[in-house]
C-alpha cells in the first residue's frame, strides 16, 4: 500500500522509526528539541523519545559535529542536524579532519556511524549565506558518503539507510523540496546508498540530475518529448560513492550525456561525472556532453529565479547535445 506524504514528513518518519528501532540512535542540533526543528524535521521526537535522545544545543556547529564524532567513537549512532548547509562551513575541521578521517587515521580501530543532516539549496529567498549547494566539497573528502535525495520516497529510505550505515554520511536535504508531496510505501523500506535510479527512461539522451534538478529535468523531459526527444532522467541520489555503473549503463543506452545540478557549475559534481565518462568510456558518447549548473556568482537574495538552473536550462542543454 502506498500513501502520500511530504518530503519533510518523510524525514521525520525515518528519524522516528530508526530511533524506535535502535536505542543507540539520537538526534542533536539547534532547535531540534522543544521546537521540533527549524523546518520541523524533528517534530514530536522530544515528546516521544525524551531529552536524552533529542538534544537541543547552543549555536555551536563545530561542537555539534564533535559531539556526534565522540559519541560514535564510543559506539552510539548520532544524527546531527546543521540548520542550513551553509553553516557546515563552521564545522569543516570537525567534519573533514576529525570525523571523516577517524577510521582510516586510527588504522580501522573505529567505525563512525554518524549522519549529518543539512538543508541545502535556494528557492526561499534566504540570501547568499543560506542557500548554497556545497556537495562537491564533501564528495572530494575520502571517508564521507554524500547523499542528496530528491523525493519523499527516497529521502525516507535513504535516511534510514544512512542511519544504519557504519560510515559518516552527509545527508543533504533540499529545503525547497520540504513541502513537496509524494507516494511512499506504508511499511518499512530502505533505499540503498550508492545506487542511482532511472526516474524516467528514455533513449535519446541521459540527464544525470541531483536533488531539485531531478524535478526540473523531468519537466524538461516532458517539454522535450513534445519535440520528439526522449530523455532518460537518472537521479543520482548518492554523490559518493558515485554509481558509475548506472551512469555508464544509461549513457551506453542513449549515447548522450547532460549533467544537471543546482550548485555552481564550475568545479561542481557535474565535472567529475563528465570527466569520468570521457576518460573511461568516451566511445559511448555520440555527442559532446554538457553540464547545467548555476553561474559563478553567490546566490542572490531577490532574483533567485534568474539565477537558478531550471527546466529551461536543461531543455537548452539537451537540445544542444542532441543537435551536435
Amino acid at each position, binding site marked *: 500500500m502506498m500513501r502520500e506524504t511530504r518530503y519533510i514528513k518523510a524525514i521525520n518518519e525515518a528519524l522516528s522509526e530508526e530511533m524506535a528501532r535502535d536505542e543507540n540512535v539520537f538526534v542533536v542540533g*539547534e*532547535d531540534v*528539541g*522543544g*521546537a521540533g526543528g*527549524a523546518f520541523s524535521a524533528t517534530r514530536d521526537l522530544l515528546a516521544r523519545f525524551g531529552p536524552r535522545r533529542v538534544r*537541543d*544545543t*547552543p*549555536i*555551536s*556547529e*563545530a561542537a555539534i559535529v564533535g559531539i556526534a564524532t565522540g559519541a560514535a567513537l564510543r559506539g552510539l549512532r548520532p544524527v546531527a542536524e546543521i540548520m542550513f548547509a*551553509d*553553516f557546515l562551513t*563552521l564545522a569543516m575541521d570537525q567534519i573533514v579532519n576529525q570525523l571523516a578521517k577517524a577510521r582510516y587515521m586510527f588504522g580501522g580501530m573505529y567505525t563512525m556511524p554518524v549522519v549529518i543532516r543539512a538543508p541545502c539549496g535556494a528557492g*526561499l*529567498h*534566504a*540570501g*547568499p*549565506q*543560506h542557500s548554497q549547494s556545497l556537495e562537491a566539497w564533501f564528495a572530494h573528502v575520502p571517508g564521507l558518503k554524500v547523499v542528496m535525495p530528491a523525493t519523499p520516497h527516497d529521502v525516507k529510505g535513504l535516511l534510514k539507510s544512512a542511519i544504519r550505515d557504519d560510515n559518516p554520511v552527509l545527508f543533504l536535504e533540499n529545503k525547497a523540496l520540504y513541502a513537496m508531496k509524494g507516494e511512499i510505501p506504508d511499511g518499512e523500506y530502505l533505499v540503498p546508498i550508492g545506487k542511482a535510479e532511472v526516474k524516467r527512461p528514455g533513449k535519446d539522451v541521459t540527464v544525470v540530475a541531483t536533488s531539485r534538478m531531478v524535478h526540473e529535468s523531468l519537466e524538461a523531459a516532458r517539454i522535450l518529448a513534445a519535440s520528439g526527444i526522449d530523455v532518460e532522467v537518472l537521479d543520482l541520489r548518492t554523490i559518493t560513492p558515485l554509481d558509475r555503473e548506472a551512469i555508464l549503463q544509461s549513457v551506453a543506452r542513449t549515447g548522450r550525456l547532460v549533467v544537471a545540478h543546482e550548485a555552481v557549475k564550475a568545479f561542481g559534481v557535474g565535472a567529475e561525472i563528465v570527466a569520468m565518462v570521457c576518460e573511461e568510456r568516451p566511445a559511448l558518447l555520440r555527442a559532446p556532453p554538457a553540464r547545467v549548473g548555476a*553561474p*559563478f*556568482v*553567490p546566490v*542572490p*537574495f*531577490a*532574483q533567485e529565479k*534568474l*539565477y537558478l538552473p531550471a527546466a529551461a536550462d536543461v531543455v537548452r542543454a539537451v537540445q544542444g547535445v542532441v543537435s551536435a
Partner: protein
Amino acid sequence: MSETRNEQLAVLESMVRIRRVEERLAELFTQGNIPGFIHVSIGQEAVAAGVCSGLGPGDSVLTTHRGHGHAVAKGIELRRFMAEIYGRQNGFCKGRGGSMHVADRNVGVVGANGIVGGGLPIALGTALASQYRGEKTVTVCFFGDGASNEGTFHEALNIAALWSLPVVFCCENNSWAQFTPQSSYMKVTSVAQRAAGYGMPGTCVDGSDVTQVRAAAREAVERARSGGGPTLLECKVLRWQGHYVGDAQKYRAPDDVKEARTHDPIRSYAEVLGAAKVLEPGDLEKIEQCVKAEIDDAVAFAAASPMADPADLLTDVYA
C-alpha cells in the same frame, strides 16, 4: 551628564523610527511585498538607539539578522534600505542581500550578517583599521546571546582584549535563540561575565532603559576611542515577537510574551522625558508624523524600484 533637550528627543525619535520601520516591515512582509525572512527587534529599540546615539559617522557598526534597528539608528538612508529589503536594484546591495545583509558604508553600517556570530571576527578587522591608521574611530559589533556561544565570540574577544582594539561588543541578551530558550543553550545567564576570561571589562545593563544603555555605551565608546581597549556590553532585553515575522511562538508561554510587552523602552523614555518636561504635549505626535512621512516615502521608493535584470546579477563578483 549635561544633555541638551534635542539630544534626548533625538534618541526618542530614533526609537520611534525603528519601531515604526519594523512594524511596517512586518506588515509589508505579511502582505507578501517582501521576500525571504524578516527578523524584527521590536521591544529592543533602546539598545540600537542608545548605543548609536554616541557614535559618529566615522564609527563602524556591524550587525546581525536582527539588524534593522542598528542600521536605522546609525543613520542608514531609509529609501535604499527599504529598496534592499524589497530586493530591488536600487537597494544598497542591489537586491542581492535583503534584510539580513543591509549595509551602507557611507554612514558606517559596515553590514548585517546572516551567520550567527559571523560579525565578531570581522569587527576585529574594522577596529584594527582604526588603530592602524591612528584614527579615533571605533567599531560597535552587535550580536545576540545565542551568538555568544559560537566559537567566533571567544576568538574575537580574546584578540580584542589582547590588542586593545577600539571595539565595543554589544550583546542584546533577549534570552532566546530562534525557538529555544536560554536555559537550553547556556548555563550562565549573563554574557557580560564572560569578559573576565579575556581580561576585558564587562557590564550588564537593563536594555529596555535607554538612559542606562546610553550611559554604559558612552563609557565603553569613550574607553575604546581613547585607546583603553574593548568592552563587552550586555543589554538585557525582551523579545516581544517571534524569531521572525510569522512565527507564532507556540514554543513560548503566552504569559512570557505578555510580560515582555510590559517593558516598552519607548513608552518608558517618553514618560521620563515627559516628567522632566523635555517632551512637551504634541512632541511625540510630531515625531510620529515625521517618521511616518519618511517611511511612506521610503516604501514608495522601494516599491517603484526595478528588480535586477539578468546582466546586473552577474556583476561585482570580482572587482
